[in-house]
């Protein structure tokens, strides 16, 4: 018997996509948002037509494209990721995901299905906006490449936010985590929506934006795409059953993300002959990114089951993840140092780049060591490490300032603030002379020593795990 084409399509898409589409299309929120988006677009089109009618040589296109993209951004950057978050949260709360895994579906299939469905819905919303965007293009003032790039940015950013939202939902295994993640996701998505809308608005605002912004846009887009894969792989690994081996895929995804981002960044940096600010900004951004990722990576479960396959990357455990994050921080600093050498070395830029890697390495290492102390142990391995990190960063910020206050020095005095993760870093970035080099050497040496100690601690944990 020949299957109907819709049935063939459903078979090809997989059970998760079929289920999610059925649930998504039945949800009231889909119909309401779709209807509202159409109404907004229609009203804006009428206003645009009114303004353009009779006026010769108008260039109203850019203004109205921005309005359409803002409306689309609200849906793509907030509604869709939040719906995906809620959908995954329900799966975690009802423990239905474990029933799905028992059917033979892989946890990656579950997450991929949810993500693909969200993206299909985003495409449906975008298609509703498309005729209006084309209409705006007819009003002049905006080039087609600008609109296309803005839509691509919209798709990439929406995909990343959706993956992160799904990933966050998989972490909500307790009532407290559930409430915390529900509140945080709203805040994160609102900020992300503002950022996404701002970038899209900037892209269509001026015909020169595209050429000027490509040096920043391409590395950020690469990082966003990598983060999408990383978030989905990490979520899939955290959904695995105890009977399944932990996977190396999140680590591979992180490695590929960072290597590709660094490669694209280096390429763009050399191509546009980037300066000190570019290197500092890049190193700070990627350092912060590795801190965020590292906080999850270094708090991974200890050790590995006896029947885990051999091979350093495949075996689960915090040790390998910690070493990978440390290597990536060094690689990141090395890449920027190399870039600076190509365009003409600048001592100050070098300092900020090295400091951007040294502080994350130092505080992540200390978190691993301190997280094993009894006072933190009651939180469990993962939370203890994260709580230790936040506590240490807070202490590292406050204690040097108090010292400066009591010794009558300026609050941001260089010496006492060498290990201050905020003021110290700001000093390295702002510093104008070369006399500050010894502080950097002390910081880098301490960070490397702490990383060595953390490796020993994690090795012992691995050995103790049974």
């Amino acid at each position, binding site marked *: 018997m020949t299957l109907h084409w819709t049935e063939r399509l*459903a*078979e090809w898409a997989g059970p998760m996509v079929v*289920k999610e589409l059925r649930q998504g299309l039945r949800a009231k929120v889909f119909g309401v948002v779709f209807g509202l988006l159409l109404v907004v677009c229609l009203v804006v089109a009428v206003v645009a037509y009114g303004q353009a009618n009779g006026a010769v040589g108008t260039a109203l296109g850019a203004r109205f494209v921005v309005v359409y993209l803002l409306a689309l951004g609200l849906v793509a950057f907030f509604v869709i990721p939040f719906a995906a978050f809620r959908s995954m949260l329900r799966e975690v709360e009802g423990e239905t995901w474990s*029933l799905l895994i*028992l*059917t033979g579906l892989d946890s990656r299939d579950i997450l991929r299905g949810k993500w693909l469905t969200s993206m299909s819905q985003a495409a449906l919303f975008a298609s509703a906006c498309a005729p209006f965007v084309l209409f705006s293009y007819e009003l002049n003032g905006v080039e087609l490449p600008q609109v296309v790039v803005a839509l691509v940015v919209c798709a990439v950013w929406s995909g990343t936010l959706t993956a992160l939202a799904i990933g966050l939902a998989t972490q909500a295994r307790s009532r407290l985590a559930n409430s915390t993640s529900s509140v945080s996701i709203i805040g994160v998505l609102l900020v992300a929506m503002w950022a996404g809308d701002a970038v899209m608005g900037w892209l269509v605002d001026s015909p020169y934006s595209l050429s000027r912004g490509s040096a920043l846009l391409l590395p950020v887009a690469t990082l966003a795409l990598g983060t999408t894969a990383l978030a989905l792989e990490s979520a899939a690994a955290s959904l695995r059953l105890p009977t399944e081996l932990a996977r190396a895929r999140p680590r591979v995804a992180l490695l590929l993300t960072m290597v590709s981002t660094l490669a694209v960044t280096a390429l763009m940096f050399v191509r546009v002959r980037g300066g000190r600010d570019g290197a500092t900004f890049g190193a700070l951004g990627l350092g912060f990114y590795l801190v965020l990722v590292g906080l999850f990576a270094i708090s991974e479960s200890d050790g590995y089951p006896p*029947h885990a396959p051999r091979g350093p990357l495949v075996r689960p455990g915090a040790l390998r993840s910690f070493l990978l994050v440390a290597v990536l921080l060094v690689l990141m600093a090395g890449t920027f140092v190399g870039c600076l050498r190509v365009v003409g070395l600048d001592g100050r830029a070098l300092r900020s780049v090295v400091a951007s890697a040294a502080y994350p390495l130092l505080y992540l290492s200390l978190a691993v060591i301190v997280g094993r102390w009894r006072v933190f142990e009651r939180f469990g391995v993962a939370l203890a490490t994260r709580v230790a990190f936040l506590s240490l960063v807070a202490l590292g910020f406050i204690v040097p300032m108090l010292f400066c206050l009591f010794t009558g020095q300026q609050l941001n005095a260089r010496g006492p603030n060498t290990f201050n993760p905020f003021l110290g870093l700001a000093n390295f970035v702002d510093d104008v002379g070369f006399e500050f080099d010894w502080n950097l050497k002390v910081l880098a040496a301490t960070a490397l020593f702490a990383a060595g100690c953390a490796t020993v601690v994690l090795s012992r944990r691995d050995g103790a795990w049974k």
Partner: protein
Amino acid sequence: MSLLSVKNLTRSYGSLQAVKDVSFECEAGQILGFIGPNGAGKSTTMRIIATLDVPSGGDVLLDGESVVARPDQARPLIGYMPDRYGTYEDMTVFEFLDFFARAYQLRGAERKARVDSVMEFTGLAALQHKLTSALSKGMKQRVALGRTLLHDPKLLILDEPADGLDPRARIELRELLRALAQQGKAVLISSHILTELAEIIDTCAIIEQGQLLATGTVQDVLAKTAGVSSSVEVEARVLPSAVNDALAKKIERLLLEQPQVSAPSVSGELVRFTLGLAPGSAATAEWSQQASVRVLRALVAAEVPVVSFTSREHDLEDAFMSVTRGRVQ
């Protein structure tokens, strides 16, 4: 060879031993009742058998293959229903079963036939277009049971399936489980409602604080635990038209005069008392029969209009109460 063989299973969470050296077996076509108080380790054991958790020690063999070593191979043979049914509220009954059938890699006509057959078996065909959120608890439980049957597993693991169901739904569930056992499926079922279990299970395993206290056929367990009890409860009824205060006092006085009788109570036509031995002695079936006859004879001789006289049989509840101590961990 047993279909399911649990061997020296142990599961520890830090210093807490949730399951301690548990061993039992279940044959195809058999219904095994897994009985124990809350926190006894029933769900942990069931989750390990269902490949959702790993044991700290021991093994589970399903059809001769280790579930622990090869969970992927064991899963197609297992249908697991947790105490939370795990239904999607915004899907219809058909969509829900169809989705799981797709997940089980059933394709095209085969999938449709399987879903139809499961809906027919569980009595859900008439409700197939209803949202699961609109179903009663009993019907939701049927949907969940239907999900476990889609891939035609050899072993069904049902964790507290009768919990919260009304009497009608419980009776219907009992009938469904009997039918499944007749199809040759092994059913591992846990429940708190022991009277309900007693009517359907062939074998039972009583667990407390992670330790298996008794296992075997229901008759074996009852026989083993019957000797532990040192008392028998007796219930009698008198002619309703003869009931008055004087008769009630007469019965109470008469019963108290009888050796080994304690706690007599007369409420309307209902008379209750306990026949007991000295603590530590075992009340055998023969002893309880002889003692009952002696008391009945005394009542009849005193012209009490007795219309029925029964001593309560030693049942699964008694067995459970006699081997467990109400300890929790």
